[in-house]
């Protein structure tokens, strides 16, 4: 198949890559841009491991064509925080048991990030609903909820610290 250039702003950097028109966004990220943080857990949008933020909204990249996102701003798990730093959401999952095998974690981080960006203080029901498109086979979700709680606390304390300085 002939290729065309797709232009994406991924994790803050403009990237151009020649792709066949049927290239999935997940394959473009994983194979062409070598951002392997987003995972393929299924082939039919059922698991959420491949979620990325497109203009701030979670999108399942395993069923998205890369060319549908021409000139869009995309954030993958690698871009949630600056290199060497962790976002409160990442701290929450790392410290409260939200990541066991870690394979679903990138998708959960993206879903959680999107939720907290919109609702910094979500209700338990909002958290449960926001994470219902992502499957985790390890945790039984309890420590994922703990991780989200910890992420909220960390975000708050960072905001307080920023306010002081």
């Amino acid at each position, binding site marked *: 198949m002939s290729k065309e250039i797709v232009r994406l702003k991924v994790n803050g950097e403009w990237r151009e890559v020649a792709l066949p028109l049927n290239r999935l966004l997940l394959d473009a990220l994983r194979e062409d841009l070598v951002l392997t*943080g987003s995972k393929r857990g*299924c082939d039919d949008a059922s698991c959420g491991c491949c979620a990325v933020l497109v203009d701030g909204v979670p999108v399942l990249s395993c069923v998205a064509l890369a060319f549908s996102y021409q000139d869009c701003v995309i954030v993958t798990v690698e871009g949630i925080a600056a290199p060497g730093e962790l976002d409160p959401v990442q701290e929450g999952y790392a410290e*409260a048991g939200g990541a066991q*095998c870690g394979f679903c974690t990138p998708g959960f981080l993206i879903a959680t990030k999107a939720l907290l960006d919109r609702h910094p203080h979500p209700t338990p029901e909002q958290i449960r609903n926001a994470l219902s498109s992502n499957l985790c*086979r390890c945790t039984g979700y309890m420590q994922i909820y703990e991780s989200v709680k910890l992420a909220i606390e960390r975000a708050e304390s960072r905001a307080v610290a920023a306010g002081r300085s």
Partner: protein
Amino acid sequence: MAGETLIGKPMPMTDARSKVTGLGKYTDDISVPGMLIGRILHSPHPHARIRGIDTSRAEALEGVKAVCTGKDAPRPYGILPIGHDEGVFQIDKARYIGDNIAAVAATSAEIAEQALGLIDVDYEVLPAWLDPREAMLAADNWIHQGKPNNIEKEYHHHFGNVDEALARADFVREESYFAGEVSHAAMEPHSTLAVWDADGRMTVYSSTQVPYYLHRTLADVCEMPMSQIRVIKPLVGGGFGGKSEVIPLEIAAGVLAKKAKRPVKITYTREEVFYAHRGRPITYMDIKAGLTREGKITGLYARVVQDGGAYCGYGPVTVLYSGALLGAIYDIPNVKYDGYRVLTNKPACGAMRGHGTVNVRFAVEAMLDALAHDAGLDPLEVRRRNLLKAPCITVNGLRVTSYGLPECIERVAERSGWNEKKGKMPPGRGIGMACSHYVSGAANPIIRSNIPHTTINLKIDRDATVTVYSGAAEIGQGSDTMQVQIIAEVLSVDPQRVRLVAADTDLTPIDLGSYSSRVTFMAGNACIDAAKNMRAQLLAGVAKKLGVDPAQIDLRNEQIFVAGEAQPRMNFDQAVAAALEFQGGLVARGTYAPPEEARGGKFKGSGVGPSPSYSYSAQVVEVHVDEETGRVTVDNIIAAHDCGRALNPLTVEGQIEGSVYMGLGQALQEEMIWLDGRLMNPSLLEYRIPSTLETPEIESIIVESMDPEGPFGAKEAGEGSLAATIPAIANAVFDAVGVRINTLPITPEKVLAALEAKKKSERVKASGNGGPAGGNGNRGGSR
């Protein structure tokens, strides 16, 4: 145990940062220059003779670099020495839809796919055996020559005298139970990358729980010495048993790489994962049990038929576990077991979390609930009256060294408000309980040998880093963290100083793998041994340097103290430098092998079930049942698990909750649906594992029985809680609406049918027509 600074404290996983940044590499994330993509051709027929395979058209396709069939690697393999019945690609027959026939390595996935379509296979379709109850009666057309009547293995065990025991019971029940087939559904699909090196060695990266067995099998099937193969386990995205035997793609990648002399990566699609399977088999269970008026179980009989699928796999072990752990959780003097592992033309089943114990536990715990009801006794009280008195040896020869089940029962009873709720729930709401147990590793290795089950090597050099070389396979359960924690504890160093090199056969000594919940107990004990040896060496060197008796030297919190002195003499870096002067690099080794007394009886099949120690769980579940739709909703689950000692409460709780979650899925919604040998739901959209919306509040309670032989008292935490969840839910459904669903999963259809049958039987009774008594709902196998 007192005085520990790290043991018993929550510690985030050592690899957590690599996981939350997306920088950690799973096998499919790894690419190397010149890498080819492999794809496997699967059989479209459940049972067919292969008359011929013509690969010439595929080979001629531009971009195809290797095409392999069974002729390229004819040696059969299998995880058990008694079960080498599977070729990487089949030569004579295809035995299930999805069986492996040939494979292609090409310069792109698209070309590889296209090439599969150009392989011509001439099949002669044979009648297929799809139901184990029919397959085991087959007079001919057996799936494997040498397995008459399609019976892979059968075992018959009898301890005490069950007939006599049932004859003197006040209440006897005979019930049939059924459990549908379930699969692991780890989020990471299996992936293998085999890299052919310039010097003719092969490095294989694979998503495996068992690098050592993979290493052996690759050497055997690829016909290369083990020394020419290196197996590396990158991050693994969950296993649950689905990666605990060698999976066809792992060998296929090796065979393709050897032929192409190029790196080859194969990653399964989710559909292929379901067909590769090795999950929990369809199980038919006929149970008989007797109870006295006082609530003492007199005897227990089980006849179990497992639908093993087309190859042996772990099958004989599964059916032996079903028998070995059938009654051994309680003090039951008379136990009889007839177990059959039957071959059918479906994907092979294997080990899945709670291996072999889960379905029989469902049946036995549901049976106890029913018997307690017959006797007018509280089911929780019935468990109390049948407890073992540890330490002891069960009737089938299992050595019980620690037994926290009584405390588990009391803790969940108290936390749930059992006494206030049982029998007093409003209509449509119910409460149920059940117990389970599991091994902390198998006392006997799969391949009989006298090699320790785990060896750990330690190294300290001038940088004063403590490097741990461990073959144990972290698959998400936290075993790397556990080992770092133990080494740091024993050496009194900051865990940050400890670096773990894991599961790389060029570097790390043998560990048998992550299965049967063996790693904490076995690798944990080997870590203690290694760290003690290292500590002794280090302190001997320091003593020599200081000119002091080694007995006078202590190492605490990275400081060297001499007896009687308040101020430390050296820090850890200085201590290492001192010790290095006398011997160069510090190296130490630790090992673990289960003690002889833990290895079980001498009868046929007694090798499976023995463990150095057993975990226990008790659970209470509350449900509500919608009588209009039959839908069961679990409101909450309280699970108490005796893990001996929670080395890391954070990961122990994660393991308990994860086990309960998986039990919940099997109880209510997970089932592989088969039609003519074809899986009707090979995707996560259709095979529905619970999402956040279906998962209730799970509360885990840690019970610590301090096992005398476990590392710091620890035993397993990762599997034992799964089995209790299922019968606890079934028993709660009975409490809510008065019907017993004896077949899994407990779907709305089955609940509605049982409610209908119950109403009908009540109407018949009310009209005085007699009729069959008791609305016993769904009997096993009535599908």
